[in-house]
């Protein structure tokens, strides 16, 4: 044990007076309010916010930091929302020169890398293709499960599920049920963006609305599929928008308990219509923005067990620092990440497990390799 710590004690007392009552609530294990969370976003007292998040995290996860060896598979970049989601540079028109759609054989060939790697999870997300039927995905999941029975499949965001329901003329619940029958283990949290209708109409007009996104996740939870949830920050949203978004997640979690992990995603403006319109490029969010999105998430979402830092978006350095700011999950080895890299992320395309373990240990934490369901695997399972 590198850092002996008295249970329930903040390592840094807040300097700003408006944070004192919030710190008291956190120490007492009480829920914080909307106003509290906004104050945490607005304050410059970064270390106090980090310290509160660290305390909440330690109560839930001790010194453990989870990582999963995963492989991203993006079956298609064709997306009927390519003009709608102005923050995205990944989706393209069906007839665009760089449009691609993988055949199932291509998916299996790409996934074959898992035979020679410690991969425990396929993370499968893509565009809203106008023609790909539900059977494409159920066949894909069945095929992957046959070939790699030890690998979990975490696939399809709520937006993709709703799109498939529309194409097939069935309910979203039917889609999830069929995917589950095919072997779906978990669902990623993408497509949430920011729930605020004003922000949504600015950055993703006509994309699945907040209540629909939440409904798909509610149904997944009811069908026993755990899911993640996200927040895309660093564009046009306010602190209040971020907090209101998180509160909607907290409410659903109170109802279902089906969210495993909250993952704030830092927006990358390069090559996006929104970036061009706003005249911004490069690193949009600062280190403080990135750490606060994680830390406030940890404090406010007291009912979601895990907070994950997505190093592809915030750099491995910020992700490692985040382990002292309430984060207990470091995005694992990512093979072939495409979505953020088309928007200018200059982070590596993958990290090897040794480096992830080094970063976690060096932050004074205990690395725990996990599967999609947060079961310890590998050495951690027998330790």
């Amino acid at each position, binding site marked *: 044990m*590198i*850092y002996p*710590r008295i249970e329930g004690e903040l*390592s*840094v*007392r807040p300097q700003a007076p408006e944070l004192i009552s919030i710190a008291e609530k956190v120490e007492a294990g009480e829920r914080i309010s909307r106003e509290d969370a906004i104050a945490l976003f607005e304050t*410059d007292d*970064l*270390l106090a916010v*980090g*310290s509160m998040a*660290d305390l909440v995290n330690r109560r839930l996860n001790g010194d453990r930091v989870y990582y999963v060896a995963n492989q991203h598979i993006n079956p298609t970049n064709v997306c009927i929302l390519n003009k709608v989601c102005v923050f995205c540079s990944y989706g393209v028109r069906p007839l665009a020169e760089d449009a691609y759609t993988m055949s199932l054989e291509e998916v299996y060939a790409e996934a074959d890398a898992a035979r020679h790697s410690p991969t425990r999870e396929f993370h499968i997300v893509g565009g809203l293709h106008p023609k790909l039927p539900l059977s494409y995905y159920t066949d894909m999941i069945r095929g992957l499960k046959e070939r790699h029975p030890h690998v979990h499949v975490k696939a399809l965001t709520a937006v993709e599920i709703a799109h498939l329901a529309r194409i097939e003329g069935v309910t979203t619940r039917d889609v999830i049920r069929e995917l589950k029958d095919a072997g779906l283990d978990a669902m990623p949290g993408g497509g949430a963006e920011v729930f605020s209708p004003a922000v949504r109409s600015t950055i993703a007009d006509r994309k699945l609305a907040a209540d629909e996104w939440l409904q798909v996740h509610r149904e997944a939870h009811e069908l026993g599929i755990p899911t993640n949830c996200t927040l895309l920050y660093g564009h046009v949203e306010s602190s209040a928008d971020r907090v209101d978004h998180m509160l909607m997640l907290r409410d659903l979690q109170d109802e279902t308990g089906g969210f495993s992990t909250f993952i704030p995603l830092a927006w990358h403006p390069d090559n996006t219509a929104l970036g061009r319109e706003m005249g911004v490029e*490069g*690193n949009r*969010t*600062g*280190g*403080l*923005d*990135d*750490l606060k999105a994680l830390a406030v998430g940890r404090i406010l979402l007291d009912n979601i067990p895990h907070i994950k830092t997505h190093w592809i978006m*915030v*750099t*491995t*350095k*910020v992700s*490692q*620092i985040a*382990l*002292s*700011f309430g984060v207990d999950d470091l995005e694992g080895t990512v093979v072939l990440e495409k979505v953020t890299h088309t928007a200018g992320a200059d982070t590596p395309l993958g990290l090897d497990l040794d*480096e992830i373990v*080094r*970063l976690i240990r*060096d*932050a*004074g934490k205990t690395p725990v390799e996990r599967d999609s369901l947060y079961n310890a695997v590998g050495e951690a399972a027998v330790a």
Partner: protein
Amino acid sequence: MTTGVSGPSTALEPVDAGERAEYASLYDRPLLELGAMARERAAAAVPGGVVSYIADRNINYTNVCVTDCSFCAFYRRPGHEEGYVLSNEQIGAKIDEAKAIGAVQILMQGGHNPYLKLDYYTGLLDYIKTHHPIHVHGFSASELDIIARVHKLDVDTVVGELMDAGLDSVPGAGAEILVDDVRDRIAKKKIDTGRWLDIHRAVHGRGLLSSATMMFGAGESRDDRVEHMIRVRDLQRETGGFTAFIPWTLQSDGTEMDGTPEATAAEYLKTVAISRLVIDNVPNLQVSYVTQGPKVAQVALHFGCNDFGSLMMEENVVSATGTDFIMPRPMLVRFIEQAGFKAVPRYQDYSRVRDDLDWYCGCAVCLDRRGA
């Protein structure tokens, strides 16, 4: 005291092992706690919630070097086809470009090129001050050393000559880790700890200010880093001539040390925070956004740092390893302000840039030149 030719450096007293161990044990404290301690010291040392930065340009007048440091990807041996020495006119043009975007100094550093004599340096400085006047922050201790050795001169004499020709301050490079065991391993041919300190002592003795750097993550121990900090603090007690301490992490790509895992960001933040606690007499602590990236640099402002370093128009040494962060001024200012500080442009002596000044630089040395 000898700061002489190739004679022995001033004998170094061993540092107090107890003190060193006590400071090194700070590395075992929680990151945020260290940050809070360092933040408090920084606010006391530099009040007003400001974070400074300097608009400047790096000019690397030569890459020819005989020192063969294993952590460096910039240098070329004499005779190598990629070796270069910039002409005065090339340097003048770079200065004009820098001044056009508001630079208040140039940082002039190069390899240890034994083919360049003292008159090259004095001639260059004189040319700059006559034709492209600007504050020249230049020639780190190991460059001053090679000039002295080539001419078998005292370093103090060399500094005096350069100062007369227009040298305004001295950068703190070449310190690496000021522990000879470590230096022997990573930079065997470079000046030793005693010599580095002697040269800065001589610089301060001439009334010039300098900074001090530390390159870590080269396999040294935490004790070694703390010893380095204690050396800087102790010389500062004697001379008061250090303006700033600037720790940064080894970038090993393309160097002989390629494959050395970089010191992590948590280690970096702890190291800056501990620097702030150990070196209690040097007012400024600079982030290294070139090695850490702008995000971590911003976070470091809450871990005891109060200066964002330089708004570099050009950087050749670290970028030779593939690490390449250059920040335009609006982004640098935005990052400082988003961290909750007021961004203040400064001169090399850390005084604020003055709009009312009819001279190229407002630091004390440059203002003296106007009077002369």
